[in-house]
């Protein structure tokens, strides 16, 4: 029989690099691409609002209240004569900001606590998970309402409230993923080599959570947007004259009968933005599916 030579490895046909496959899978999902497209537009609008908005969104013109949608006021004017279309464009800023920043903050907290409780387990795990159970026992809106009551109603306080509320969900997901990864052999191998716990968490566990965190991030943003809108609608979020979509819907509520567009139009803006994030999130989840379950 042949000798002991270990023989050159038969060149393995090189499968596509990982990210190419993900992009290809994502591109096949039409809805996801549409979602991405909408979000790019929304982001552009948020940046260029001052240039795009035909009118000053805050300038009150009493004579021009409740003008029907017309050529120079595509979505008419509101109870203070302000151009609804311009206010919606400015509203994009608040919603995107509220969507992205608190989600980032709360998820960072969630990742850290999830990693620690999943990796070290026992007492610290028990405490963190009890804390998470506690936070999750509050209906998210109610907890945000309490924080607003405590700190007073303002946009900045919404940031704080939403950041404080959101971490529990992420902590649970990261903890579950860490527990699943912890007894995997490549973690045992690292411990056998003498890699320190911190390095194991950051170099081995976290990178394997990234796909799931990306999907979670994309799907948490809409929750944040909806929460702000709801708080502002209830009058305990953004305060007038801020161009917050939720506040605009609340403002147009009394005039629903004769000027429905004032209340309905900002709602549609919320719907489109949130839908786009959901499409993006679903598309990412399907594209990343093989990499989600560690």
């Amino acid at each position, binding site marked *: *029989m*042949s000798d002991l*030579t270990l*023989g050159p490895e*038969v060149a*393995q*046909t090189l*499968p*596509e690099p990982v990210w190419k496959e993900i992009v290809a899978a994502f591109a096949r999902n039409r809805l996801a691409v549409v979602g991405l497209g909408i979000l790019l537009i929304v982001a552009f609008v948020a940046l260029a609002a001052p240039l795009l908005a035909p009118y000053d969104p805050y300038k009150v013109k009493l004579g021009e209240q409740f003008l029907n949608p017309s050529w120079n006021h595509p979505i008419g004017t509101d109870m203070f004569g302000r151009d609804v279309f311009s206010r919606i464009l400015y509203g994009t800023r608040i919603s995107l900001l509220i969507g992205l920043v608190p989600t980032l903050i709360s998820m960072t907290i969630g990742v850290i606590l999830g990693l620690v409780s999943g990796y070290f387990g026992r007492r610290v795990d028990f405490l963190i998970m009890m804390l998470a159970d506690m936070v999750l026992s509050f209906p998210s809106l109610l907890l945000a309402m309490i924080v607003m009551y405590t700190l007073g109603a303002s946009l900045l306080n919404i940031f704080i409230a939403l950041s404080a509320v959101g971490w529990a969900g992420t902590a649970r997901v990261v903890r579950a993923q860490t527990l699943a990864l912890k007894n995997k052999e490549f973690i045992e191998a690292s411990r056998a080599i003498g890699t320190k716990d911190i390095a194991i968490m950051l170099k081995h566990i976290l990178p394997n959570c990234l796909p799931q965190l990306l999907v979670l991030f994309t799907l948490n943003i809409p929750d944040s947007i909806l929460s702000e809108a709801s708080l502002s609608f209830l009058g305990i979020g953004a305060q007038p004259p801020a161009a917050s979509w939720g506040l605009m819907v609340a403002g147009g509520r009394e005039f629903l009968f004769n000027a429905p567009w004032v209340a309905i139009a900002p709602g549609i803006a919320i719907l489109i933005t949130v839908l786009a994030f959901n499409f993006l999130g679903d598309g990412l989840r399907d594209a990343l599916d093989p990499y989600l379950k560690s």
Partner: protein
Amino acid sequence: MSDTQGDTRRETAGLLEIQGLKTQFRTRRGVVPAVDDVSVSVGRGEVVGIVGESGCGKSVTSLSLLGLVTHPGKVVGGSALFDGVDLLTLDNKGIRAIRGRDISMIFQEPMTSLNPVYTVGQQVSECLRSHASGVSRKAARASVEEMFEMVGIPEPRARLDAWPHQLSGGLRQRVMIAMALICKPKLLIADEPTTALDVTIEAQILALMKDLRRDTGTAIMLISHNLGVIAETCDRVYVMYAGRVMEEAEVFELFDSPTHPYTRGLLASMPRIGGERGPRKPLYSIRGNVPDMQQLPKGCRFAPRCDFAMARCVESEPPLLDASHATGNPGGKPHLSRCWLAEASGAGGQQ
């Protein structure tokens, strides 16, 4: 099976004749010919072994018979005559009537093959009642208990109401066998039945399968990557590689005089308990890797790893040639080998 040794010539009219079976998996990166023109036959009451390494298509062959190949797999060619009926042409209703009644299957992972939210008794009687509609719940329960007894489950009556997670791997595999045999099938397909079991439990299950075959006359198609299991259980063996049958022979013939280089390589690379070799002597090892099913070489699929590869092997793929002349056992069951070496030794080609 020691008592069948005397009469291997028993009238084994073909129970199952698979001819040129082709099953393909359409993936985005191209078509994978998992089963590529495979012909296997099983006689009544015969134990036929299909051996091969992972990815050689042995499991897909069995799943294709019963139409259990899930998307993106699809049977694209060939025929499978079972008692004269071509399974591949049956509609859903037709193949369902055969599954579990005439042909039944047991799988490799006893831990996950049973539904965790039903008791094992319920799951076995469900198989019986779905085929023998007239059977009452009580009668079904009685025959399930009797079947548990037959497959050697201690305290069968108590175990009827046990949940799968309360049983060990060995016991669950016995439940699977009971489920497979409850309708008295003509053919039992066992896909790596003992791979996930411990050695002593594996011995029990293999002994059980041999006894059941003797008592019930059920033919068995045993699929395994373990040549030891195949040697101790089967009458005839098919060796598969990269979706193709490389060698087909009666079991003594195959182990005494393997002709195909792949079979010889497998046998040589197996560490032996007999231990003729001390630990210092290295094992023969077939070099290279299992081929990528999307870029199969032109000629013989084993050529890149074969020590006897000739120019001819790389150009054209050999058919299954009759190698029985080469091994001096002309009269016996066919001994075929998909290798030009067989032709070189004067054996006629079998087209």
